[in-house]
């Protein structure tokens, strides 16, 4: 499959927005879905629907096999050692909550420190904050530098003998900075500290190799990876899934249930309580196949060309200020425009069919640090083109016209 005309695989682009072609630059928020994924959901519900894992009839057996196939596909896609290291969740947010809650419950006590970075999304902060409230755990933040990066050194600086968890983003959803996970993990492990990676933006844009990164936990949102909404993945090293207590309790995750006590099921069941997102898991297999067909190297090459081009034209546009200038950057172009609030930009761009996001992008701490209340963000998917970025730039010039600024 050729990435240069991949747009045609996404039916959304057949539609007009305010009579304009859709220029979708909000993929960091959620990506559009290729036809194959949409079709798979349709076919599954129309011809093959059943719950998984519980019944032994024909439809149930087939659905269970397809469900477990996706687990294997994900395992291969991220090069995990064992398929049972893949746990399906509601989203990356749930995946991080799962880890914070179970790890915190078992291993953290008052005075222990969790090390985050100033780049973190609220989803990788609030769950840890709960442990501050319930257990007196302390939260530290590694500094972001002027280029919008968090370096290995700035993390090292904040590690103390009390640090019991490092939880960091793989790729910032605001500055686009890509963190050196492998080096950070090495450092952390040398001090016996586990590492959780918020891979929400890493997964759609980077080649993933869990055994190489060697992180302990990796959280993914499938809806940002050309997959259905309502599905996420927690990768966790097997020893953690074995050691940690279960998270939600319910059907499917138990061994034996008596009035006096309960035993829990084997992996991965232990962490998949209740009826799961059957259709979404089964359809997500198509997202992975789709990405594999394109080739993740081609995705990375394509997007890095776009990021470079985008930075180039926005830098030429005098009133645009790009946020962050990381050496290793992917996926997003955040900026401000002199004299025009990001919210006004987003509204005006929308009229030209250009969809971006304005606000703090769930990163208030970073925006406080940058001393801006909000920013505008154009974020990329595989379907974007240089033409899309030209249209973005033109639409920004239109903002200036409306606001009479230069």
């Amino acid at each position, binding site marked *: 499959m050729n990435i240069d005309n991949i747009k045609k695989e996404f039916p959304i682009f057949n539609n007009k927005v305010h009579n304009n072609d859709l220029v979708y630059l909000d993929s960091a928020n959620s990506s559009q879905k290729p036809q194959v994924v949409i079709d798979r959901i349709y076919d599954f519900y129309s011809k093959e629907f059943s719950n998984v894992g519980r019944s032994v009839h024909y439809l149930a057996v087939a659905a269970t096999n397809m469900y477990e196939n996706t687990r294997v596909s994900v395992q291969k896609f991220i090069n995990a050692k064992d398929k049972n290291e893949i746990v399906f969740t509601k989203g990356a947010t749930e995946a991080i909550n799962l880890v914070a809650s179970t790890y915190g419950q078992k291993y953290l006590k008052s005075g222990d420190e969790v090390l985050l970075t100033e780049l973190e999304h609220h989803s990788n902060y609030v769950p840890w904050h709960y442990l501050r409230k319930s257990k007196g755990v302390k939260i530290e933040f590694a500094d972001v530098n002027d280029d919008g990066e968090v370096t290995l050194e700035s993390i090292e600086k904040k590690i103390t003998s009390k640090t019991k968890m490092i939880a960091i983003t793989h790729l910032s959803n605001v500055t686009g900075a890509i963190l050196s996970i492998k080096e950070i993990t090495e450092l952390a492990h040398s001090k016996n500290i586990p590492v959780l990676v918020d891979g929400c933006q890493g997964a759609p844009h980077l080649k993933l190799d869990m055994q190489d990164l060697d992180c302990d936990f990796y959280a993914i949102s499938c809806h940002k990876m050309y997959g259905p909404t309502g599905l996420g993945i927690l990768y966790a090293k097997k020893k953690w899934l074995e050691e940690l207590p279960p998270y939600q309790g319910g059907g499917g995750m138990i061994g034996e249930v008596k009035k006096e006590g309960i035993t829990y099921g084997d992996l991965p069941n232990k962490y998949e309580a209740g009826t799961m997102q059957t259709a979404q898991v089964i359809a997500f297999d198509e997202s992975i196949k789709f990405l594999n067909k394109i080739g993740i190297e081609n995705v990375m090459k394509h997007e890095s060309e776009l990021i470079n081009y985008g930075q180039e034209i926005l830098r030429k546009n005098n009133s645009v200020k790009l946020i962050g200038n990381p050496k290793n950057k992917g996926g997003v172009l955040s900026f401000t425009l002199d*004299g025009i609030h*990001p*919210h006004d930009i987003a509204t005006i761009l929308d009229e030209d069919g250009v969809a971006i996001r304005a*606000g703090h992008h769930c990163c208030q701490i970073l*925006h406080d640090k940058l001393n801006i*209340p909000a920013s505008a963000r154009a974020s990329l998917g595989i379907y974007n083109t240089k033409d899309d970025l030209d249209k973005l730039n033109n639409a920004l010039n239109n903002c200036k016209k*409306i*606001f009479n600024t230069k």
Partner: protein
Amino acid sequence: MNLKELYQEIILDHGKNPRNLRKTENFNKDAKGHNPLCGDKVHVFLKLNENKKIEDISFEGSGCAISMASASIMTDLVRDKEEKEAKDLIKDFLDMIKEKPELVTKSLSEDEKTKLMSLSGVKKYPMRVKCATLAWHTLISAITNSQEEINTEKFD
């Protein structure tokens, strides 16, 4: 074209050069408002005299053109009004922004009405209605002197 209705001259003017963007000396009522979606913040200061008349009103904050213009226009229109009159005006404005086609208030001159109606462009932009109403909700809470921030619970 709707954008022209949204960003009328008067809005752009008030957005860029908001009136009453300062802190009233000796204010005796105030409240903070916050829109978690976009990060807009506003802090409204009031000086009510013994007859419950608004002697001065001002605000501090930052936000988009719509929210700044709205705060600016609001503070202009509300000054020198009785508390009761102000409350009616707020209600009238909020009704208009949400559903009613027109203002019904009699306490404003035609000029003032035009000014206020310039904010009605947001009706076609549902996600922006909150920008236009934030200052007004904050004003209510300043008048009724509820201590909590609008849209914001206490820090946890």
